């Protein structure tokens, strides 16, 4: 199929060591503690519905979605007893309110979701989030896409190094994926479905390709470049449609779903199973690379113990991919729905000191959003957030390419991320305040 080309992006070393043909399962130990934060990147403030000492089964709702903002139900991933409802650790938020459950003997079964008429409700009740890493609640995507979307894109491009978890699903769960895709296509009355493969996901996926062909689903093989998988990039590369600044994919009648998310939807719809586990890649500078099904709420520490990995041997541990993941200092943080991998690395990497911009222009060349990362960073450093907003700071997809290539080791993406999360809001509030005061 014809692809449109976009400027920018980088070639990364693949390092795809984890065998995608096999998916292992991580056992649950008696007495092991599981942690469930009530807030996540997009979804906040679920309300606990269990108390200390309550007996729960896997799949039971332990916290209900709140009425305000984006919020989802949270399910226990194990059979056990509620140990406490208190402050717990979180890889991104440091500390947050959460529920701790102590596992007892596992029955291996789970409480099924109540049947609903609407696919959107099922997805919401199952607690499905964008499992590629962003964590945008899927029900919102489905809701805003209803009767609007003509194309569904399945993002199977796993362009970050080391990761093979999506590939493992593509290989091992091809039937299930296609079944779900056809189901969604029928439910939402979608004309066309494209599965976008890239890098390692194009390998060993003959079964999926054959099934797709039989069901007139298009397959696109993207060039091996990071980050063609950004939503706006993917839509342009595949369809030639441009999502305007500040708009969502639904504005050009497209919905994008990640492979892991589709598999989550499969479990919700066909097996009435909420998201209580997911496949993650364990890799890095270790020997036994693998893809493994991990129960939500498992701590990094207990995962490493069960896999016989000694954390002392490594100097950094990253949840998620090398380009966008989070490095952790504390092993007691839980693995959540958005975590696609754990990377244990032992290398000479350090926090480089930033040097003056050499004005080489490399960051501008690689930015797939066509931004000038150095210009935006300069504006931020000078405190001129207004200029940064004019230069479209909010369009940044936080891919990290600019920092990756900067010859002066400037923390471009880091500053932009910080400004986006904190400074821009303040600036907008301040200017509105000014306007209000000036208007009087």
């Amino acid at each position, binding site marked *: 199929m014809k692809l449109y080309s*976009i400027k920018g992006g*980088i070639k990364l070393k693949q390092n795809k060591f984890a065998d995608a043909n096999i998916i292992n399962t991580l056992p649950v130990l008696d007495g092991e503690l599981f942690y469930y934060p009530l807030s996540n990147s997009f979804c906040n403030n679920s309300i606990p519905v269990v108390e200390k000492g309550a007996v729960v089964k896997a799949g039971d709702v332990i916290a209900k979605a709140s009425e305000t903002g984006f919020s989802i139900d949270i399910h226990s991933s194990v059979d056990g007893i509620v140990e406490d409802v208190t402050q717990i650790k979180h890889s991104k938020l440091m500390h947050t309110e959460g529920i701790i459950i102590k596992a007892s003997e596992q029955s291996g079964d789970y409480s099924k979701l109540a049947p609903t008429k609407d696919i959107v409700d099922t997805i919401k009740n199952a607690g499905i989030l964008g499992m590629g890493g962003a964590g945008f609640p899927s029900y919102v995507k489905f809701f805003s896409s209803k009767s609007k979307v003509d194309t569904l894109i399945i993002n199977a491009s796993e362009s970050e190094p080391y990761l093979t978890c999506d590939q493992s699903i593509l290989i091992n769960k091809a039937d299930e994926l296609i079944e779900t895709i056809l189901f969604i296509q029928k439910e939402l009355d979608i004309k066309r479905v494209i599965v976008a493969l890239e890098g390692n996901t194009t390998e060993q996926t003959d079964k999926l390709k054959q099934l797709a062909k039989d069901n007139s689903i298009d397959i696109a093989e993207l060039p091996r470049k990071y980050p063609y998988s950004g939503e*706006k*990039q993917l839509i*342009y590369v595949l369809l030639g449609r*441009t*999502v*305007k*600044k500040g*708009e969502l994919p639904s504005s050009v009648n497209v919905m994008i779903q990640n492979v892991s998310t589709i598999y989550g939807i499969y479990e919700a719809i066909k097996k009435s199973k909420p998201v209580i586990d997911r496949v993650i890649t364990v890799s890095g500078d270790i020997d036994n690379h693998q893809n493994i099904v991990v129960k939500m709420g498992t701590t990094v520490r207990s995962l490493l113990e069960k896999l016989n990995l000694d*954390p002392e041997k490594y*100097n*950094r*541990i*990253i949840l*998620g991919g*090398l*380009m*966008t*993941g*989070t*490095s*952790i*200092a504390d*092993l007691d943080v839980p693995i959540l729905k958005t975590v696609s991998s754990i*990377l244990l*690395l032992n290398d000479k*990497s*350090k*926090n*480089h000191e930033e*040097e*003056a*911009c*050499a*004005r*080489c*222009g*490399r960051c*501008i*060349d690689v930015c797939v*959003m*066509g*931004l*000038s990362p*150095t*210009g935006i960073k300069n504006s931020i450093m000078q405190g001129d957030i207004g200029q940064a907003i004019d*230069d*479209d700071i909010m*369009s940044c997809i936080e891919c*990290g*390419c600019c*920092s*990756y*290539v900067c*010859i*002066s*080791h400037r923390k471009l993406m*880091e500053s932009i*991320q910080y400004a986006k999360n904190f400074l821009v809001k303040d600036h907008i509030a301040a200017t509105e305040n000014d306007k209000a005061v000036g208007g009087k």
Partner: protein
Amino acid sequence: MSSFLMKLPPHQHGKYETKYTFFILSAAMLPAILFSIFYYGYRMLFAYILTMGVCSFTEWVYESIKYKKDYLERFLEFKGSVTAALIVMTLPPILPYYVYVVAALIASIIAKQLFGGFGRNVYNPAITGRIAVLVGYSSLMSTFYLPTSNILENGLFNITTVPIDAISMATTLTAAKETVASGGTLPILMTDTWLPSFLGFIPGAAGEVSALALLIGGALILITRIGAWRIPFACLTTFLVLATVFWYFNQGYVLDPITQVLSGGIILGSFFMATDFVTSPLYSKGKIIFGIGCGALAIMIRIFSSYPEGIGFSILLMNSLVPLIDRYTKPRSFGG
């Protein structure tokens, strides 16, 4: 436990660093540097070492004061040495050593550090240094030599005194200017100078004579993609097109385009000086505009002014336009 390295994403970095970039740049200049040593003798080697020493030292003192810490490591970072090498390469070959020192001091202190150091300077330091001594020591600057032997024949230490083994001679560009000024005419095509100019066996500035050596270095810059191809491409194309036009309408009074491009500093300038990151535009469109400006001004200064060579002035002039160019060539964001 807390011994894990905490870092914001991205957790990896590409292989290109300032150090690496400057190392490649230095390597790219090496063919031309070696040629000048081969051609003009060991004095050139001393000149390079001396100038690099001066540049690196001032750079080191400056950074030590500015950042209040030991920057000994930076001594070896090739930042000062690219400037230093360019100064020696653009000056006539056999000069009293103090001229190099003056040029180096002006380049690194006035043109670079007073502007705020690496990354902030507006004007290309090497060209600033060169032009300062060009104005200050104009008689020395117009004396060029054609060596009658080289170090392969004489051994490294044999060309000790000047001008015993070399004859003083005007460059092609100066000679042409003088011929025309005294009422003579030039051959329409100076075919006999083409090959020596390409190889470098002509009188000229130390590092500018051999087009071949410079093009090898230029190719290295383009292959490793540390420099932007847009500037040299736009600059040389504009230069050649305009040179052809002027020559076509003034045959006999203007050198033919091939001779034009092979003599003087246009190749060195467009590949190694106009491409200096710090003093050239940031965005692709701007780079093309900048290249066109450099090429056009260079040929116009050569033809319409009393200076035989114009690449240095033209780059400096375009340097001052960089902030303006940047402002109007900002890229449009995707979907914005």
